[in-house]
């Protein structure tokens, strides 16, 4: 302790404090600059789609969005076949695959995650809660490749046997595994939101004659709704961006089908599978970076949208109380 006091009195220490503050500041801005630079560089690689006529001939925005007639005498269609004699770059099948997988994941993870959060924060005894919470949060620590492997080997066989499915690897299979990855995010955020609802609200409701059930669903749940929706949005972001699970478990067939029992190919899996060997600077290369840009913008918009909803809900709730 004495050493410390001496230390602080030295005029040198001012400079050290100054330096320390700047270092912390730099680390705070590193993330910000990192995100910005990543976006700029990814987009830069996608730019030839809009500028290079040679690449546009293969993959213009028009060709990626609308139905194309690839062969004479055949119907125009959406198709993702980048390594074909006639390369086809429709984004529509990939878009459907992405949304389908994320939707299944949400249908599976939202009720489970929020249900678990309500139980853990409102009904569980302290002892039970101390078991449930860390175990669910441990789910987040399972590497996604392990979840994918589980879905590929075990879950797929189970689902096929139980439901009698034609396709062993399908969106339902991938969606459930994705849901497992999203549950801990939804649970953690929702649970935190509910436990941070002031005790006074619960007491007031109880005083007015509400039972435990009514307190939880009529008072605590609405008050924590902004936090809960934030959890759902973050979980959705994870489900859209997650790569390894869908790559292993979804079958990756780029088809246009709304059935969750069919296979599906997502944006993220496409990038992961194809970027490794693509010819540098080719149309395929640019398209993959364009996919990356879209994915980035998409998740960014989801998070931003979620944030705005959150702020508005908060204001509304504050106005009420």
């Amino acid at each position, binding site marked *: 302790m004495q050493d410390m006091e001496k230390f602080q009195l030295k005029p040198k220490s001012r400079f050290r404090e100054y330096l320390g503050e700047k270092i912390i500041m730099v680390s705070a801005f590193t993330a910000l600059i990192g995100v910005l630079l990543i976006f700029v560089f990814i987009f830069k690689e996608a730019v030839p789609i809009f500028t290079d006529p040679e690449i546009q001939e293969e993959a213009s925005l028009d060709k990626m969005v609308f139905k194309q007639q690839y062969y004479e005498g055949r119907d125009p269609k959406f198709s993702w*076949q980048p*390594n074909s004699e006639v390369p086809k770059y429709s984004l529509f099948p990939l878009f459907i695959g992405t949304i389908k997988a994320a939707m299944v994941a949400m249908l599976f993870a939202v009720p489970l995650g929020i249900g678990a959060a309500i139980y853990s924060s409102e009904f569980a005894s302290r002892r039970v809660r101390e078991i449930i919470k860390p175990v669910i949060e441990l789910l987040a620590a399972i590497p996604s490749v392990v979840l994918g492997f589980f879905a590929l080997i075990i879950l797929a066989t189970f689902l096929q046997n139980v439901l009698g499915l034609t396709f*062993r*690897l399908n969106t339902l299979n991938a969606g459930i595994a994705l849901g497992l990855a999203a549950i801990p995010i939804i649970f953690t955020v929702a649970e935190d939101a509910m436990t941070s609802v002031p005790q006074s609200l619960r007491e007031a409701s109880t005083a007015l004659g509400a039972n435990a059930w009514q307190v939880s669903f009529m008072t605590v749940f609405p008050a924590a709704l902004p936090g809960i929706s934030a959890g759902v949005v973050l979980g959705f972001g994870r489900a859209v961006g997650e790569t390894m699970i869908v790559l*292993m478990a979804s079958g*990756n*067939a780029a088809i246009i089908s709304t059935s969750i029992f069919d296979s599906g190919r997502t944006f993220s899996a496409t990038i992961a*599978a194809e970027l490794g060997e693509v010819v*540098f600077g080719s149309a395929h290369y640019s398209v993959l970076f364009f996919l990356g840009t879209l994915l980035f913008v998409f998740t960014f918009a989801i998070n931003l949208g979620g944030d705005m909803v959150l702020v508005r809900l908060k204001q509304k709730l504050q106005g009420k109380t």
Partner: protein
Amino acid sequence: MKKLIFPAVLMLMLGSVGILVAGSTITIKGSDTLVRLGQRWAEEYMKRNEDAVIQVSGGGSGTGIAALLNGATDICEASRDMKEKEYKKAEQLGIKPYRVSVALDGIAVFLNEKNPINEFSFAQLKGMYTGAITNWKEVGGNDARIILYGRENNSGTYAFFKKKVLNKEDYSDYTQTLPGTAAVVNAVSKDVNGIGYGGIAWAKGVKYAAVRKLDNDPAIKPSPETVSNGSYPISRDLYWFFNGEPTGRLKKLVNWALSKEGQKIAEDIDYVPLPEERAKAQMLK
């Protein structure tokens, strides 16, 4: 201060070792199909030549070719020939690709062990994989949907199968693509109605279909013998690419890989060796 000295010295030492080694290292990079063979050859070669240092890494044929074009590797391993685009790019960059076949590889068609079918013609395989044939009934099997498994479109195996069997036509959109041959084998072994393809060295727990090129040809099962003598129709060369005709230590290495000793090592770890005359003809003087 003392705490800093040790890491600093360590870094210096590591750095100097790096520089010493870098001068004589041969780097090999490319195809995941070939990486196991490359590593084995490197080990054995280094045992026999103490001054040689060889680093082998995978990443795929395309990755290896890109590295060769960028001058980032001495030898590129590839399970396919370079594409026209890549040859053009090489010319622009002043690289003169020199190709040597170092081993052979057969692509097997996998079926579930419970599938009653045992053989296909090219026409049937093409029909199934392009989506014209969708039911096993149409090729003499059960009344059930054919579930197609394949490799990702970045794989040399994907490109080779497409060129050789599908006649460059597109795979059916319903083809489920999986990362790696092991995943394809696993999927087919668990799916009674599944069909897949991949290198023959990898197959465990599924059966190989015999394949005939034309409808009147005899159907041949893939095996090291039938690939080596050319009777199995879906087989290919595995290549090493150099920048210009190899000289010095690279020449010594490639001649050793093509020698009886080198080819025997390939055979020992389930690759198909080149027929002796072919290996000899490619040796550099």
